[in-house]
């Protein structure tokens, strides 16, 4: 395990910039398929704009449904990305270095997709500007708008600031060439020279954003839950909803980070930097959140189910033993218990096992969001039959397009920016491990390289 210092540094840079090189046919094939899905979704949206929201399967007894679930689910995973990165930064977790960039980028793009569903769900998106020109302070939709916008700015800052030194690396790399890349990176690197003052300012700022983004993210998801919880509708009108949504977002978000990290790790052969241990740490986080989410679910159902008042009873009956029961128990087993076991059992606590668990969690949490939105809407408030929500091909196409847009946007983004945080990787490599208390030292190769100098000019 003896590495030459320069070799290590060059390795990190090579790996981080690997996606920016010439792409193979697999990249283009995957990008093509994803783009096709997005284009089909865009076409479906145009169809929906002309024909009305009824073409997506909506009607008066199913006035909210799949888009609202998508909105919550995508903003939720975004939240996970931002929080994983922020918490790991604040706790100075050394193993975070190879995954922060992926997590932060995922946070931005899934937030964009989630926000897009807020537009897609509107009957009159052409009047969206009214949210700015004539907002009503009492409306949770306005709160959502403000919160999501704040969070968007925060995640963009959170992604951009740590990018500056990495862009400087790119600037230096393309300095000799005469093209748009030189100009782009030259402008974006902000005269970064790795000077102590610059480093200090950067670290201060990143820490400040990391601190700020945690309450912002908590609030965004709380506000999102209030769009449901402030209504008197049985099934939604619950005081537990805000923290319940926050935990749901974290849970699905960590799972999404694992999926994104696993996907790009495999595609760009980043195994040397993103090790099984990273998956294990993230999986432990996910396991904790899994238990927490199951606990919240149980708490909500117990308090409502114990009194069994006539408002909530029909919904609980349908959810636990009626028409929604198969989906609910599928969620409990598929996204609650199975991932728990996959992570808890040492035999399955492997990268494929953890990735399987994460995929189950992401899919199951999306299903859970549908189970939060649909039954409460479908339940009759006065008398008569239950409504239902049956998404049409329009709704499904647009939903798939949203799901495809996240990896596509990430693939495009990493064609232009480093996939690993070079600055942080080298920073970690430069700092000696002071307390080797853990059985596995963080980033062993880089540490053992004994790098003392700063890696960046």
């Amino acid at each position, binding site marked *: 395990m003896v590495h030459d210092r320069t070799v290590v540094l060059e390795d990190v840079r090579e790996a981080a910039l690997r996606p920016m090189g010439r792409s193979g046919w697999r990249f283009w094939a995957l990008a093509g398929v994803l783009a096709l899905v997005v284009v089909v979704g865009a076409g479906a949206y145009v169809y929906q704009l002309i024909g009305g929201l009824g073409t997506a399967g909506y009607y008066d007894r199913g006035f909210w449904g799949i888009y609202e679930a998508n909105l919550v689910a995508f903003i939720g995973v975004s939240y996970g990305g931002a929080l994983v990165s922020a918490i790991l930064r604040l706790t100075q977790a050394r193993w975070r270095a190879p995954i922060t960039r992926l997590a932060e980028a995922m946070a931005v793009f899934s937030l964009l997709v989630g926000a897009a569903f807020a537009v897609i769900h509107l009957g009159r998106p052409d009047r969206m500007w009214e949210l700015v020109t004539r907002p009503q*302070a*009492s409306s949770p939709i306005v709160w959502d708008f*403000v919160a999501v916008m*704040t969070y968007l*700015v*925060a995640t963009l*800052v959170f992604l*951009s*600031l740590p990018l*500056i030194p990495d862009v400087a690396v790119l600037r230096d790399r393309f300095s000799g060439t005469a093209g748009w890349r030189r100009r782009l990176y030259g402008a974006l690197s*902000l*005269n*970064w*020279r790795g*000077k*102590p*003052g*610059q480093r*200090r*300012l*950067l670290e201060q*700022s990143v820490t*400040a*954003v990391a601190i*700020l983004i945690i309450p*912002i993210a908590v609030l965004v998801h709380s506000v999102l839950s209030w769009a449901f919880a402030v209504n008197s509708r049985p099934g939604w009108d619950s005081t537990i909803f805000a923290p319940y949504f926050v935990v749901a977002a974290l849970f699905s978000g960590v799972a999404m980070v694992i999926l994104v990290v696993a996907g790009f790790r495999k595609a760009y052969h980043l195994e040397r930097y993103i090790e099984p241990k990273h998956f294990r740490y993230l999986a432990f986080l996910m396991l904790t959140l899994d238990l927490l989410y199951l606990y919240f679910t149980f708490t909500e159902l117990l308090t409502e189910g114990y009194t069994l008042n006539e408002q909530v009873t029909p919904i609980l009956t349908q959810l636990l033993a009626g028409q929604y029961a198969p989906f609910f128990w599928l969620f409990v087993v598929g996204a609650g218990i199975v991932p728990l076991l996959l992570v808890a059992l040492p035999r399955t606590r492997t990268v494929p096992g953890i990735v399987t668990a994460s995929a189950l969690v992401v899919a199951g949490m999306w299903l859970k969001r549908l189970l939060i939105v649909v039954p409460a809407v479908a339940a009759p408030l006065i008398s008569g039959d239950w409504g239902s929500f049956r998404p049409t091909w329009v709704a499904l196409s647009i939903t798939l397009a949203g799901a495809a847009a996240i990896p596509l946007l990430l693939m495009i983004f990493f064609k232009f920016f480093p996939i690993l945080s070079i600055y942080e990787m080298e920073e970690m490599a430069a700092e000696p491990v002071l307390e080797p208390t853990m059985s596995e030292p963080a980033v062993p190769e880089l540490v053992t390289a004994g790098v003392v100098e700063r890696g960046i000019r």
Partner: protein
Amino acid sequence: MKLLTKLAVALVLVLGSLMLLAETVTAAPVQPDPTGLSVTTAPRLDPKGHPMAGQYLVVATLKTADGTAVENQPVSFYEQVQFIGQMRDALIGTATTDSTGTAVVAYQPVQTGVHTLVAHSAASAQYAQSATTSTLQVSQVVSPFPAVIEPLASVRAALTIGVALVVIVVWAFLIGLAVRAITGIRAGSEAMQPVE
């Protein structure tokens, strides 16, 4: 045969009813006694005998021409209102006259000003119908309708301002942070040495 019987029955019936009709039209009907109805208003009293604010009793007295009280006659009370395009008699209530010929309903006007009240006693076999009006000048009203309440209005206003302030502070902080970082790094930050 059957048809004939039916026809005969029908004929008898028709003739019979015609005769009946003729009798009712031509024969002098039994004249019901003419009645005189007087109506007045009085403040309504609470159990302690104090007048209740804005509450009245509408009192009608039904008497025959010779001044005998008419008992057990329903009297309907109306208020004249201009409503949906025309003057309408809005039913306040119906009460039956007691042994003194008096029928009473409670009346709670919702508006100040002059109200026109109508009492009406329908015709019966014994008595002719009669009606009368009275006006009531009202200067104080107690609305019978639940007031529109705005619970916690001041708290809600304060909350809105508070949240708006927090949002502004967060945005200012975020943008300030970003601007500070960008300008600082661009300036090279030699001036911004660590302040240990």
